[in-house]
């Protein structure tokens, strides 16, 4: 039966050829979109008025990307029809593509209201993509008037942005918090030992800044009208992230660690190889989806984000890898988008971090999952029967989605052994480092793993429903051990893939 399915899949591939060419290489096949109308709109940029292609989907309007980029600037690299598109504006690179309602901005992933739609005159994208690219980074406002079919682009009015600055040094890490009453438009520039937060179109209000203590890692903080500079010690580096409500831009500054393998990160997305060069870490849940809630009220979405950020920092310290988070703030992100983004970035590993819960407060320990539609011969037979049943009942659902599943199954089968290998290493390291109850390596059809075209695991780091484990997970020292265990597992996996065990023993945390 499996052979038959594979033959059928290959036939489908052959028939659909170009249309799904990207899928075989990992990109998500876009769902067909119903467009209610298509035509030309007016792009109004001050004194210039130029035509721009637009279409209207059920979610909202989409506009021809190329026409807007020509007017507002940027270097657009058009991929084949269903592959990722790259747009470079200033020094920032944006990656997006059909079938994926999200855009990757450097190492951050932001959701879009709808996926870009391929059309004869090029890719059509939703308005919020322009707002992300040209609004926040360049200070433009976009207004769509459906009655006149006019997209107006204007410079945003200058605002006075009060900022308060706090600095604290704890356990070798200096944390600088810039707090704003609203999200300002800004970009972060880095040069040597300077990290600069540059406001776009707005001005900083200096009266809110108080005197700060001297610090071993942050030599000075200089405040201009439109920029704020952190002057770091020579041996220091800073990692930034965002917290919401109120909006805070946070920098964790720490000493660079000399390692055997000093990071020499290739900024361009790597090609798929036997190396591990790009890792996508997925903090489970987010936004209104809290995930599990512990007895003291701690929410899974917050803990997974904390763990993911720490894992990203530690992995980047230890290995020359590019590490990307699927979300770097408290935002809701569809499960399908998480793996689609990993595919888009041609990631070599996908690690989804979660915390478990059940009603019984005594359940404890970690477990690691990898996924397959066909876990065993028995379940393969069951799955085949199931497909026949559904087909016979006439409920064949979305044919394209079914095809995607088959294609994914084909693609994922080559990564099954590697996913299992990584899962075993993760489980073993967690058990050893934390003395957790070994719940073992398991398989389950978790949605977030379906669609990943690379070795992929889901790690349940402990039971947040267990009061003792919840308390431990709130302890930074315990989390540090947990992160070290995950880093060791990835290092061992990477060494195994590269055929060099020596790489691991030198640099294990």
């Amino acid at each position, binding site marked *: 039966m499996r052979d038959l399915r594979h033959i059928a899949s290959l036939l489908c591939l052959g028939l659909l050829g170009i249309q799904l060419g990207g899928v075989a290489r990992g990109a998500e096949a876009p769902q067909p979109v119903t467009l209610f109308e298509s035509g030309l709109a007016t792009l109004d940029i001050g004194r210039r008025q130029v035509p721009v292609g637009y279409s209207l989907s059920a979610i909202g309007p989409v506009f021809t990307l190329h026409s807007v980029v020509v007017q507002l600037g940027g270097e657009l690299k058009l991929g084949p029809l269903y592959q990722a598109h790259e747009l470079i504006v200033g020094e920032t690179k944006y990656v997006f593509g059909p079938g994926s309602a999200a855009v990757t901005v450097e190492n951050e992933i932001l959701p879009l209201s709808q996926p870009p739609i391929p059309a004869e005159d090029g890719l059509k994208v939703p308005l919020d993509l322009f707002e992300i690219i040209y609004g926040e980074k360049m200070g433009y406002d976009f207004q769509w008037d459906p009655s006149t079919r006019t997209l107006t682009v204007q410079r945003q009015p200058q605002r006075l942005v009060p900022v308060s600055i706090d600095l604290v040094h704890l356990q070798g890490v200096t944390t600088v918090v810039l707090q704003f009453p609203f999200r300002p438009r800004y970009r972060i520039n880095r040069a040597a030992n300077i990290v600069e937060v540059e406001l776009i179109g707005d001005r900083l209000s200096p009266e809110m800044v108080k005197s700060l203590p001297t610090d071993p890692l942050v030599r000075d903080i200089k405040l201009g009208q439109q920029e704020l500079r952190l002057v770091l010690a020579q041996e220091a580096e800073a990692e930034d992230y965002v917290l919401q409500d109120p909006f805070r831009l946070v920098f964790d500054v720490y000493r660079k660690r000399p390692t055997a393998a000093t990071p020499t990160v290739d900024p361009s997305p790597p090609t798929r190889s036997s190396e591990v060069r790009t890792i996508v870490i997925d903090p489970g849940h987010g936004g209104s989806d809290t995930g599990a809630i512990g007895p003291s009220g701690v929410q899974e979405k917050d803990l997974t984000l904390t763990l993911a950020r720490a894992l990203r920092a530690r992995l980047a310290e230890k290995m020359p890898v590019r590490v990307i988070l699927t979300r770097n703030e408290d935002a809701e992100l569809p499960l399908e988008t998480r793996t689609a983004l990993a595919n888009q970035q041609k990631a070599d590993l996908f690690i989804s971090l979660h915390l*478990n819960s059940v009603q019984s407060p005594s359940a404890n320990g970690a477990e690691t999952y990898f996924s397959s539609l066909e876990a065993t011969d028995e379940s393969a037979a*069951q799955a085949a029967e199931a497909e026949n049943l559904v087909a016979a009942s006439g409920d064949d659902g979305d044919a394209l989605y079914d095809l995607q599943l088959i294609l994914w199954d084909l693609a994922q089968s080559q990564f099954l052994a590697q996913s299992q290998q990584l899962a075993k290493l993760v489980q073993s390291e967690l058990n050893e480092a934390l003395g957790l109850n070994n719940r073992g390596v398991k398989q*389950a059809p978790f949605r977030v793993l379906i669609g990943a075209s690379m070795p992929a695991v889901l790690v349940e780091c402990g039971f947040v*429903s267990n009061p003792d484990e919840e308390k431990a997970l709130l302890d930074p020292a315990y989390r540090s051990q947990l992160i070290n265990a995950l880093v060791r597992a990835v290092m061992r996996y990477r060494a195994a893939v590269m055929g060099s065990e020596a790489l691991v023993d030198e640099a294990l945390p």
Partner: protein
Amino acid sequence: MNQRTAGVFLAVILLIALGIIILWWTQRDGPAAPGQIAAPEVPRLEGDDALADFYFPGNGGRLFVEQRALPASETLEERLSSLLEAFLLGPEAQNLYPAFPPEVSLGHAMVTDEGVAHIDLTITGQNANLPWGSKQEMLAVYGLVDTVLLNLPEIQGVILLRNGEQRSTFGGHLDTTRLLLANQDLLAERTP
């Protein structure tokens, strides 16, 4: 009361106390160890009742069986609905847990000619985003699926809907876009 009678009386008291302690010891942790589940009292129902096995979450992240009688039903769909309604009410045993929160109720259940059960669960109230860990979701979904498939052999698989819609997951983890089959890996060993 002579000395001999007092001794016998004391021995009886001690035996009763020992019995109470043993009873308390064996029941204090409920179904933690497989094989220790005491079958709950079967409710006495009028008519030709049928016994059904319900699979509910218990200690250790496993599903434990609770056997109950259900009133006999004329049709397969009636039996399915009555099975699901009883399942959603939760277990009678104190040491087992309801698979779904009280906000979840049965919307509709039907069976196709090919033996596929379409089960639509309705969620109302503040728990619309179920705050579940993956294990809790697996226990809920497979508790329901196993209860249906292991009691009604005419049904081959389950399609699970939420508020009338087949979603990518029911609670954020498990893929529910496909036909769900019984999962016996989660079952605790039954009482011999």
